[in-house]
């Protein structure tokens, strides 16, 4: 099946089985390896991408579902001012240890702040609850999001 969609702001057309996992399409066909496979069943959030601005687990997203939509991965997002604010927040707060969950957390943070630029702590926790981290115990990631909000005031 021919699928047309926007990937990191460029128009793309591929001929692919519409039931293929978007995770595999992005990693294997487009070489976008910031998208990580941690569980393959939508539980861990390491493969989070933005589809029309909303966070989705690409491991349970069939390629056919992105037809006509805009897909953004970290490779596309990392050139933005919003990304820079999140990067600085995560750096300063010590939000990163092994790093395998980090791209997913960055994308989930963008999705959260896009919907709610001034979340409370509870709303941050809720917004990131689809992403698992085994190293940090989350508090330092939440702190990173807070710093990003401060530095990126007005961007969201």
């Amino acid at each position, binding site marked *: 099946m021919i699928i047309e969609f926007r990937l990191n702001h460029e128009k793309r057309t591929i001929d692919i089985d519409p039931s293929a996992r978007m995770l595999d399409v992005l990693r294997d066909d487009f070489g976008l*390896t*910031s*998208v*990580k*496979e*941690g*569980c*393959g*069943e939508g*539980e*861990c959030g*390491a493969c989070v991408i933005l589809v029309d601005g909303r966070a989705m687990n690409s491991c349970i997203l069939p390629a056919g579902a992105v037809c006509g939509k805009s897909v953004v*991965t*970290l*490779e596309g997002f*990392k050139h933005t001012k919003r990304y820079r604010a*999140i*990067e*600085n927040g*995560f*750096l*300063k707060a*010590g*939000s*990163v*240890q*092994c*790093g*395998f*969950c*980090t*791209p997913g957390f*960055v994308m989930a943070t963008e999705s959260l702040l896009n919907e709610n630029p001034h979340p409370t702590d509870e709303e*941050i*926790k*809720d917004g*990131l*609850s689809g*992403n*698992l*981290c*085994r*190293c*940090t*115990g*989350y*508090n*330092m*990631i*939440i702190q990173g999001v807070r710093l990003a909000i401060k530095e990126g005031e007005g961007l969201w």
Partner: protein
Amino acid sequence: MQFRGQSVKENIGTSILRVDSRKKIRGEAEYIADWKFDGMLYAKTVRSSKAKAAIISITLPEIPEGYAVIDHRDVPGVNRMRTVVSDHPIFAEKDVQYIGQPILLVVGPDRETLYDLAAQIDIQYREEPALFTLEEAEAHSRVFTDYHYKKADPEKYFHKAERIIEDTFSTGYQEHVYLEPQGMAAEFKGDTLFVYGSMQCPFYVKHALIETLAMPEDNVRVVQTVTGGAFGGKEEFPSLNGCQVAVAAHKTRRPVVMIYDRAEDILCSTKRHPAKIRYKAALDKNDTVVALDIDVLLNAGAYNGLSPVVLQRAIFSATNVYNIEHLNVRGRNFMTNTVPSGAYRGFGAPQTIFGIEMLFHTIALKLGLDPLEYKMRHLLKQGDPTCTGGRVHETVKMPEIIQAAVERSGYYDKLRTNKKFQGIGIALFLHGCGFTGKGESQIRGKIVLQKCRDRVILKVSSVEMGQGAETVLRKIVANTLDLPIANVLCEKIDTGLIPDSGPTVASRTTMIVGGLLHDAALEMRARWDEGTQFEVSKIYEHPDYLSWDDETFRGDAYPVHSWGANVAEVEIDPVSYELTVKRITAVYDVGVPIDERALIGQMQGGIVQGVGWATVELMESEGGKLKQGNLTDYKIPTSMDVPDIACYFISNPYEFGPFGAKCAGELPFVGAPPAVAAAVSNAMGCAIRDLPITPEKLMETGHDH
């Protein structure tokens, strides 16, 4: 924000930015699943579906051109994974001992085709009677390892005891859930084998490859790729899948890559040992515990592997921070037909420390005493004998640690004012730093510092796996040499380029390897003007005042300990019995923090893993099959579940640690579970004897109450 020029001159504890975080945040760090090799083949493992059986026959489908099947007959050398007890076959031969045991690999260029081929392989088994639980294994005396040690004269003190109290505690499996699943790759370049992957111990993998591939040492190189969490789960296991891909690359002469998905990872990778600990305590007329009889039972699973050393740490930690004059301690690893247990943060100590903390808590309540005061009555002091008859050489700051934990948490106020279903509890704990017993003196870790004009390269085999080792080790050298951290670099973790400074385990990296680097950097500083290019190398020497006898288990099991106290606050829903851990106040003595933010990261993460083990992380095996086989069924804490955590550090420099640092990585895991259990006990007015504390179990105790 710049890394370059980051000053590391001030107080060593002042935090700097981690050297590896920007690449990771940008999604540019390359984990093994992101690597591509020319002409690479993927591998899929075919595993036993039976818990114990003889293999009668294996029928293969037609194998297409470019695909291959690899089994034990393809192993050029020894078909056993080299570790403490080298008993796990690389590929099963005539029999299988657990569900998930690897039998063969199918390799080929297309993953879909591989999965189809693997599904068509027909294996006929003759099932045999199997043992699954600790209870069954004990009843059948299916013992792998049986250790025993004694201190002073326990028989006499049990005989003349005023009162004898017996109790039993148990703990369950725990899955590591490193976010990056296991993955390894192998390729030959000429006669040299290169193995790449996610691992903690490159030289363990190298030595395993030398034996299994029957290759000369010089022709085997192991390269660590960016490692997405490990926690012990990538200590011994990568030697197994590393040997498997290497045998496949040897047979096919093509690069072979094997990445597990989560379900396969959970099915076959090692877990924390389920444990049962039986205590018999002899109390004198003042209600002081004068003698303890401790019986530790660990479920090692189908192969012993490195379980004997896990058992050693379990039994040498069994008296925790307490000075018990008379001891009789037995520890046994049992064989069951279940997935092998292995290394996991804490390495046997969390099980026994949970046990003794709950024992003291329960005895105190039984006697109508305050648990904390009762515990403090038994505290070890500097100069006291350890459980194995060594000495507590270091200054013990437990009274200060406890005072800080009590004050910062408002422990006694809350103990008075808490309502039913609200609880507060305290746990005291220690962790022996570095390898157990003779471990460090046998491994004799080696490091090299190389000066290249204004830069210094450090060569170690300690890996960055998320814990911050690269930042901390570079910082130790940069600070000692008064160089910007950007001028101090780590050599790539490739066994062809680095010396063996030992594995990245046992909370030994900062203290032992960092200590060697600190010594080398001091020497380099003194000789700085000797030339633009020279090397300084160091080999670990155990402090000569330490002694250890491996036969009798007498002496200093650890050179020094890190210490701590945790206060946990919990709430329990009176209807659903759902348990919420609200707050943890944690105070630690880790010597001197090398980098406070990195250290707090270890403490926060370790506490939450410990809270997970104590509460939501239920994993059970039935008939040798895990009931929780994926992350939908096996829950780990999410951002919604984490308590507020406040960490404090009490400075207590250790003479042989870099800048006075001791061990830190495992310590937070050890303390949180018994603190949570004590708090739940306080909330419910009942003893907690079993981890994890599930709502179902609480409901039973709540109804009994």
